[in-house]
């Protein structure tokens, strides 16, 4: 297992956003985190990233306890993240966004080669001198995925990677993630769109009121009667 949480708890005032969560991600899989609004998906995501500190419990990344490490140190150890709202540097050029993302590890020729590869990968060739904020919404999302994967993360964390995308962009993003997975990148995605989850997920975890409600393959989750009640019921509101 590349990531494991043991008895993770977090509350904000009287609200338990995470209750005793024991959760794991196998190396190489695409794991989707689903659940109705307020189920604690984003909180768990932020706990794993280090943006929130747990009240109790621990987080192990590559068998190393990272519970007390700040976010930047977890990133250095091989995590990588793409936020829901495009977390790019909008006033900087596409190229600058990529340089800033990779300059940690790469210099000179290697940096340039990686930038060119990621531009091709994310479908951004010819746009490298444009201000990132002027790209279409879908391209901004792809740029951020490119920023997140250029330095070979061990674990890619995606918060609603297809939010605001057209169906076609969503389909292409799915292909992008499958091909990353084929290259050995482990992916954890928080996602609302069940058809997208069906397209990409190897395994699914359903959260409800800060607890793990169900876990299994896509087929198992879809046929789980309780999941339909809490998840699909809530999404019909």
């Amino acid at each position, binding site marked *: 297992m590349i990531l494991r949480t043991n008895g993770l708890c977090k509350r904000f005032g009287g609200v338990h956003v995470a209750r005793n969560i024991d959760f794991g991600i196998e190396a190489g899989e695409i794991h989707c985190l689903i659940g109705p609004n307020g189920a604690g998906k984003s909180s768990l995501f932020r706990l794993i990233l280090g943006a929130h500190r747990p009240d109790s419990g621990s987080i192990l990344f590559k068998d190393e306890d990272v519970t007390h490490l700040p976010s930047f140190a977890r990133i250095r150890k091989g995590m990588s993240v793409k*936020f829901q709202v495009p977390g790019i540097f909008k006033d900087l050029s596409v190229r600058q966004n990529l340089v*800033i993302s990779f300059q940690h590890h790469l*210099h000179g*020729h290697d940096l340039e080669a990686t930038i060119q590869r990621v531009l091709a990968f994310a479908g951004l060739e010819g746009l490298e001198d444009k201000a990132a904020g002027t790209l*279409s919404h879908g391209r901004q999302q792809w740029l951020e995925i490119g920023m997140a994967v250029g330095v*070979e993360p061990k674990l890619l964390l995606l918060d609603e990677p297809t939010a605001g995308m057209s169906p076609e962009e969503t389909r292409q993003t799915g292909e992008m993630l499958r091909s990353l997975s084929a290259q050995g990148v482990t992916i954890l995605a928080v996602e609302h769109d069940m058809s997208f989850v069906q397209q990409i997920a190897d395994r699914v975890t359903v959260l409800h009121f800060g607890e793990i409600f169900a876990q299994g393959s896509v087929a198992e989750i879809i046929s789980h009667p309780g999941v339909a009640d809490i998840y699909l019921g809530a999404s019909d509101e």
Partner: protein
Amino acid sequence: MTRPEVNSDLNRGASLIDATPKQQRNTLALWLSRLEGPQTLGSGRWFWLTLALAVLAAVIYPLFVDGWTVGNTAYFLVWTFMAMGLGVIWGYAGSLSFGQTAFFGLAGYGYGVLTLNFGAAYGFTLLALALSVGLAALLAVVLGYFMFYGRVQGVFIGIVTLSVTLVFQAFMAQTAGPEWAIGAARLNGFNGMSGMPPLTIPWPGGDVLLYADIALYYVLLGLMLVVYLGLRMLLNAPFGNVLVAIRENPERAEMLGYDVRRYQLLGFVLGGALAGLSGVLYTAWGQYITPSSMSITAAALPVIWVAFGGRKDVTATLIGTLVMIFLYQWLTIYGSQYAIVVMGVILVLTVLFAPEGIVLSLMRWISARLASTGGRP
């Protein structure tokens, strides 16, 4: 919309990561290449030719005016270091600081105390300069550590730094009594310290004393060029990229693996040290320093210069600062107290009509014109 070929690269089975060994590059050539880059405006033959002409004009300028005027122009140069330092802290790293004058004052007083006690022989004034700048940097480390590691952000950085400056001023203003002395150096309250030696360069056959005259002007001009070009290289290096990333989106910068607080602190210390350099040079230039160097007016002026010039570019900051100091002195001579009011009006006009800075907006306009007419190589 043309559909991007998302998978073109992947179908060839190429990994995203290239494993070729890192190319060895000549370090000097690498740093020189950073004189131009995305974080500084100005590149290509025409820019460097213009800069060379400006430097040439500055070099021959003392031939055409009297010594007093040259010494007065040296006074303008004194302030540019503090302004460029504020540009790093505010323009590049995104933290508006009113604390530059605190570092300025501390280093100025430091130079006074050291030289009044130990004199100017054996090049001691140069050591005093280094020690005083180091003292300012040390204060910046302490203050910056508590601010950035204490998660002080945004407008509160301005409030904390302004408070520190004003407390320092109030403290120095009440040191009039004879009990306030460090060795031979009386602090002298609101009247300030005076009588310290100018910068003195040891020279065989007689030390060179840098009074506010032609020699000091050349030293300051050279120092300003070194700092300006050094900052250009540093800001276009990975360090500068990270500062800009923090300014644009600190959370994203952290989530790319950067220790944001450490970089903010480094930028703050660099800027504070440059303010300290200005403080020492000011004290050595006029052989006095008073608490009014840390007054609320003094604290606001660098912010106005940098805002007027364009905080996000070191060249615009430098030009804007020189223009504003010249204007301020001219206004002080002819309009006395109204000078500060005019400065305030200029700040308001800048914020309203050219929030990126008037000089920077002009520079961008000129470079766009040159690009469209093919004037740029």
